[in-house]
């Protein structure tokens, strides 16, 4: 009986021995127990979990990424087969690939949420400017910046070829993660060294000369981060990681399309959802402004991010006293959401295949009008123009065009184009043009 009791105490004694011999009390535990403002005990503490949730997902990305790298072959003649094997052959391969996929989406959401919270809480102000700067670099490090002058360097030759994939792969698995590791180290060092910002109070602005003393006083009445505050981080991190794993387990990895093939021209390239808004911008802006927007918009956004703590290091922290800050958050998010919806719908894309007119349109037409309706499909008018709901949305809906335009106007518009429409004089004979116009005049 007493021997059993002795054995029961063994794990505790092992932990004590390890803690003492490795000096964990002075290093790890001292950092974990660093004081944080007492206000974090209250529900407002839940706003402080976004950073550690991001970190948890990043660690999960590293783990699943290493797992995938054990099987993925970054050579063009084998990459697709190895992906097929991961997704359909390897046990749990689809789940691991799914975790990496949904984890990437979760990273984007969490990083933006974390940044928005820090911005609205005014936590970037004195003396935590460098926390914000390293955080901005972390955001930047997750995006690949490929300038025009880099094209030759990145594709490792004059054309895309065997060396391209390995370069992207090495950048993805070594360079960018190494940069992220380094930046996370700096970011966390500053979080602990400066101390977490206290929840903002309206009417209590940051005054740099007196802030440090006031904050030190706050910490004297503070609580230890571990475990009084850390438990919330653990709850949030567990929830987020569980969500990623659940999505991966239920939905699995995204379907593999056909293998990448430069000679396949019926591709329908779409970026992942978080870039759909940018994809939409590039379709919707006037072509003349394109160079400015492609280069200028990201440049402006990141310059603004870096300038935020330098331009507004003091003053009110609470969002209710910073209406411009609320606008600076709301406007980009509304624009981003609207552009993402536009990107999903992509009305500017011609419908390349399977365009036909419904029977209700083609029934009871005169012979010339029937020939015109055939031409409407065979000459790909239907790719951009809809009639009674069938066809593309690139150009105007032509269901009632006959009541808007007369014969001469229709003929002129089709022959010479204009307003974004190609001229069809070269691809229609005069008789065909006549039949097509006859068909369109029946649309009233």
């Amino acid at each position, binding site marked *: 009986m007493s021997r059993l009791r002795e054995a029961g105490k063994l794990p505790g004694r092992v932990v004590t021995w390890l803690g003492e011999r490795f000096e964990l009390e002075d290093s790890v535990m001292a950092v974990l127990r660093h004081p944080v403002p007492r206000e974090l005990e209250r529900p407002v503490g839940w706003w402080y979990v976004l950073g550690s949730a991001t970190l948890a997902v990043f660690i999960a990305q590293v783990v699943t990424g290493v797992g995938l790298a054990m099987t993925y072959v970054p050579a063009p003649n084998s990459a697709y087969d190895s992906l097929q094997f991961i997704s359909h052959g390897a046990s749990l391969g689809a789940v691991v690939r799914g975790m990496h996929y949904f984890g990437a989406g979760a990273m984007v959401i969490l990083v933006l949420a974390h940044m928005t919270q820090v911005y609205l809480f005014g936590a970037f102000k004195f003396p935590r400017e460098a926390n914000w700067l390293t955080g901005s670099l972390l955001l930047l490090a997750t995006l690949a910046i490929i300038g025009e002058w880099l094209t030759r360097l990145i594709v490792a030759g004059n054309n895309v070829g065997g060396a391209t994939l390995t370069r992207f792969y090495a950048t993805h698995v070594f360079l960018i993660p190494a940069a992220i590791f380094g930046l996370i180290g700096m970011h966390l060092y500053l979080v602990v060294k400066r101390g977490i910002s206290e929840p903002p109070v309206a009417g209590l602005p940051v005054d740099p000369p007196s802030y440090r003393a006031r904050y030190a006083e706050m910490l004297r009445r503070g609580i230890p981060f571990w475990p009084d505050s850390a438990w919330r981080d653990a709850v949030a991190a567990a929830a987020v990681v569980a969500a990623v794993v659940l999505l991966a387990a239920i939905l699995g990895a995204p379907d593999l399309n056909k293998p990448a093939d*430069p000679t396949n021209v019926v591709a329908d390239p779409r970026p992942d959802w978080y870039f759909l808004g940018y994809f939409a911008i590039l*379709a919707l802006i006037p072509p003349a402004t394109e160079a400015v927007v492609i280069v200028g918009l990201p440049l402006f956004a990141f310059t603004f991010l870096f300038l935020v703590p330098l331009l507004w290091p003091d003053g009110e922290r609470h969002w209710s006293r910073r209406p411009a800050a609320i606008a600076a958050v709301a406007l980009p998010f509304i624009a981003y959401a609207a552009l993402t919806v536009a990107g999903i719908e992509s009305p500017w894309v011609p419908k390349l295949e399977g365009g036909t007119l419904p029977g209700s349109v083609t029934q009871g037409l005169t012979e010339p009008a029937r020939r015109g309706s055939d031409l409407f499909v065979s000459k790909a008018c239907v790719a951009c123009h809809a009639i009674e709901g069938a066809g593309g949305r690139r150009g105007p809906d032509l269901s009632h065009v006959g009541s808007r335009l007369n014969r001469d106007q229709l003929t002129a518009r089709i022959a010479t184009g204009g307003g*974004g429409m190609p001229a069809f004089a070269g691809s229609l004979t005069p008789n065909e043009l006549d039949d097509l116009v006859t068909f369109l005049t029946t649309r009233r």
Partner: protein
Amino acid sequence: MNEISRRRFLSRITLALTAFIGGIVGLPILGYLLAPLFSAPTDELVPVGAITDFPVGETKLVSVRDPSPLAWAGQTADTALWVRRREQSGPQMFQVFNVNCTHLGCPVNWQAGAKLFLCPCHGGVFYSDGTVAGGPPPRPLFEREWEVSGDRLLVRQQPLPTVKQG
């Protein structure tokens, strides 16, 4: 010999050696990574088919293979091109287009009925001669140099086109 100058001497030696280590490790790896910048551009002529493969007035998709690909290049050594056989002969006989839209590089699709190239990404449209018919593309489709040798059509392999070639 006072203590300060000795310390200064040692710190300079240490910094110099650190820079030396960085240099002898960094220079080879830098040269290795930047090598593609100094390689000669490819400009070989590669055959794409017999002239009779291309009926007059039609536009056909062909694929050409990089003449000296890396062993593991797989399908990335293939490039697709649109070849247009015109009514004329001589230097006007063909037009050979890169398939990439001049907007952001998605592959354009030839619609034989409408005689248009349509882009699936942002809705760029080009006429059969490669000029812009509508949408965001800033310039005509990029063309490749070609030659007729006997009854074969040869196309020159070229670097990725950039805006500067406009």
